[in-house]
C-alpha cells in the first residue's frame, strides 16, 4: 500500500452518481485511488477477498439493489478486519429514520448528495481531509449529518 495515496471506494448503483464522484476527485487533484462498485454484493465480494487492498474511506449509497447500503454497513461493522475503515453514508435521502439507523449502526458521517457539482467537490474534499480519529471521538447525532 502506497501511503501517499488515499484509497477510496464508492458503492452506488447510479451510473451518473459514480461519474460525478470520480470526476469530482479528478478535478480535486487529491492523491487518491477511487474504486467504484455497482451494488452491495459486488462491494462485499471485493472486501472479503483478502488479496485486495482495503479502502481507507468507503462511501455507501443506501438505496441499492440486491444488497442495501445499510446491510453492507452492518456486515462491515461486525467484521473486525474492517474496524479502521471510515464509512461515509452517501445518499439522496435525508429522512430521520435513515440518519438514525446508520448512526446507530456505526457509520462515521452522513452525506446528503448535493444538487450542485461545485458543492459536491467541496463536500468530498472536506471528508477526505477530515482527521477521522479526532472526529470519531467527538461524534454525536448533531454533527453526524454533514452540513456545509
Amino acid at each position, binding site marked *: 500500500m502506497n501511503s501517499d495515496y488515499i484509497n477510496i471506494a464508492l458503492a452506488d448503483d*447510479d451510473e*451518473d*452518481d459514480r461519474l*460525478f464522484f470520480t*470526476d469530482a476527485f479528478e478535478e480535486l487533484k487529491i492523491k487518491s485511488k477511487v474504486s467504484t462498485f455497482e451494488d452491495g454484493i459486488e462491494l462485499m465480494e471485493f472486501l472479503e477477498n483478502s488479496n485486495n487492498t482495503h479502502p481507507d474511506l468507503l462511501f455507501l449509497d443506501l*438505496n441499492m439493489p440486491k444488497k442495501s447500503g445499510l446491510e453492507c454497513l452492518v456486515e462491515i461493522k461486525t467484521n473486525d478486519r474492517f474496524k479502521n475503515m471510515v464509512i461515509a453514508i452517501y445518499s*439522496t*435521502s*435525508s*429522512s430521520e429514520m435513515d440518519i438514525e439507523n446508520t448512526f446507530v449502526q456505526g457509520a462515521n458521517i452522513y452525506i446528503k*448528495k*448535493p*444538487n*450542485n*457539482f*461545485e458543492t*459536491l467537490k467541496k463536500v468530498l474534499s472536506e471528508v477526505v481531509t477530515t482527521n477521522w480519529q479526532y472526529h470519531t471521538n467527538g461524534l454525536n447525532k448533531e454533527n453526524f449529518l454533514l452540513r456545509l
Partner: protein
Amino acid sequence: MNLTPNNYLKAAFGIGLFIILCIGGFTYKHIQSLSESSKTVKSTYSVSSELAKILSNLKQAESGHRGFLLTSDSIFLDPYFSGVTQLKENLGRLDTLVPENTDQRKNLKKLKSDIEKRFSIFKRSFGLVDDKLILSEDLLYVLHEGKMSMDQIRKDLVNMQDLESRLMAESQVKNEKAMDLTPLMFFGILILTLILLLLAYAKMNKDLMELKDTNDDLVVFKKLTQQAEKISHSGTWIWYVEEDEFYYSDNLFNLLGVEPNSFEPSLEKFIGFVHVDDREGLGQQINKMIKEEDLPLVTFRIVQPDGTIKHLKAFGKLIENAFEEKQLIGVTVDATEEYENFKLIEQRNQELERNNKELSAFNYVTSHDLQEPLRKIQTFISRLEVKDKDNLSEAGNICVEKIKSASARMRLLIDDLLQYSRTNKTESDFSETNMNMLLESAKQELIDSIEEKEAVITSQNLPTMDVISFQIQQLFINIIGNSLKYSREGVPPKIDIKHEEVISSEVEELKDSFIKHYHKISIKDNGIGFEQTYAKKIFVLFNRLHGKTEYSGTGIGLAICKKIVDNHNGVILAEGIPNVGAKFIIYLPYLK
C-alpha cells in the same frame, strides 16, 4: 353474640318457659304450706275435743263413784267403769295426736300421772266403804284428797287447752302472712308475663313489618332487574350447588332465543345451546369454577334455535345463604354488538394502518425517488455552467438559466410538500417549551433575509407553553418569512409580536370550544397586506395570491402553519389591509 331474629325467638321462649316453671314452683309451695296449716288446725281441734271428753268422762266416773259411795249400790259402778274405759281410750287417742318431744307431750305426761293418782284415790276410797257408817273419817280424808286431785287434773286440762290454742293462733298468724303475700306475688308474676308477652308481640309485629317492607323492596327490585336485563341484554342465573338445581331469569331464556321457562334449567341443557367449537373451552372453565368456586369472565358463542349465533359473556360468584348452602350467582350478557363493534374497529384500524404505510411509502418516494432525477438535472446544469458556459450562445445560456430556476422551484415544491406531509401530531412530542427560545431560533434561521431587508422585529415576553417545539418553530419561521417576503418595496419590514391570555367565550372564533383559556399570539407586519376576502383562502394548500414571478413561493407555507396550529388544537386567523399590512393571530389552548 349476634342476635339474629332466630336467636331472639329462642331467648324469648326460654324466658317464658322459666317464668312458667317459677309460677308452678311457687304455687306448689304455697298450696303445701296451706295444707300444712289446715292439718295443724285439725289436730288442735281433735286434741281440744279429746281433752273435753276426758273431763266429761272423769266427771261421769266421779258421779258414779259418788253414787256408789252413798248407796253402795253396784248399779252406780257401771257409769264409773264405762267412764274409766272411755278415759283410757281418750288418753290413747291423745297419745297419737300429740307429737313427741313437745311441751304438750310433757303436759300429757303430767295429766296421765294426775289421772293415775285420781284413780288410785278412787280405789282407795272403795276399800274404805263401810255399810254402816256412811262417812268414816278416813273416807272423808280420801274424798278431800280426791277433790284436790280433781282440781289438779282440771288445771292440767286447762294448761293443755291453752297451749293448743296458742299453737293454733301461731300457725294462723303464719298462715295468714303467707296467704297475704300469695295474691300479690301471683299478680306480680302475671303482670311480668303480660309485659313479656306484649314485648314479644311488639317485636314480632315489628319483624313482620320489616319482613313485609323487605318483601316489597324485593318485588320492586326484581322488576327493576327484569327491566335492566332487557335493556342491557343480559340474564341472571343461580346455581344451587348442593342440590344441583338452576334458576334462570326470564331474559336469560330470551337470550337463548326461547320463551321464558320453556324448559327445566340444567347445565346439560345450557351446554346444548353453546356453539360446538366453544363447548370444550366453556366446559373447562366450568370445571375450574367448580373447583375454585369462582367463575372468571368467560366468553362463548351460543346458537339460538333459529340458527342465530350470539356472543355471550358470563361472570359468576359463589355466595352462601343463611342456611350455609352454597349458591353460585351469575350474570350472562349478550356481547354480540360489542364483539361486532370491536371487529369493525379492528378492521378500520387495519385500514388506517395500511393507509399510514402507504403514506409513509409516498413520503419516501417524494423524499428519495423524486429528488434523485431532479438532483441530477441540477448537478448536470452546474457542470454545464462551469465547463461550457463560454461555448454556449446567449440564447443557450438563457435556456440554462431557465432550466436552473425551474428545477430550483421544483426542489422547493418537493421540500415543502415533504415538510407538509411530515407535519403530523404525536402526543409524545409535546413538551413544556419556552416560546421566546423558539422565536429566537426562528429569527436565527431567517437572519440573512432579516439583515438584507433591514427588518425590525419587536416582541413581547412570551410564556412557556406545552407544544411540539420544532413545529412551533416552523410556524414562526413561515409567518415571519412570509412577512419578510411580502414586504413593500422600499419600506423596511416592521414585525410586531404580541401575546395575551384570552377567555374562549369572549372570542368569536373560539365560542364553541370546550377549553376556557387560550394564549393569543399576534404577528403584525407593515407589508403589502391582502384583501380581507382572501383571509381564509391563503391557508389552503397550493393557494397563492400573487404570481410566481412577483414573489417566489409554493403555496404550502401557510398550509403548513394551519396544520401545525390544528395539531395543537388551536385556531389561526389572518387579517389584511392592502398596502398597509397583514396580521396573523394564533390561538393556542392554555390548560391551567
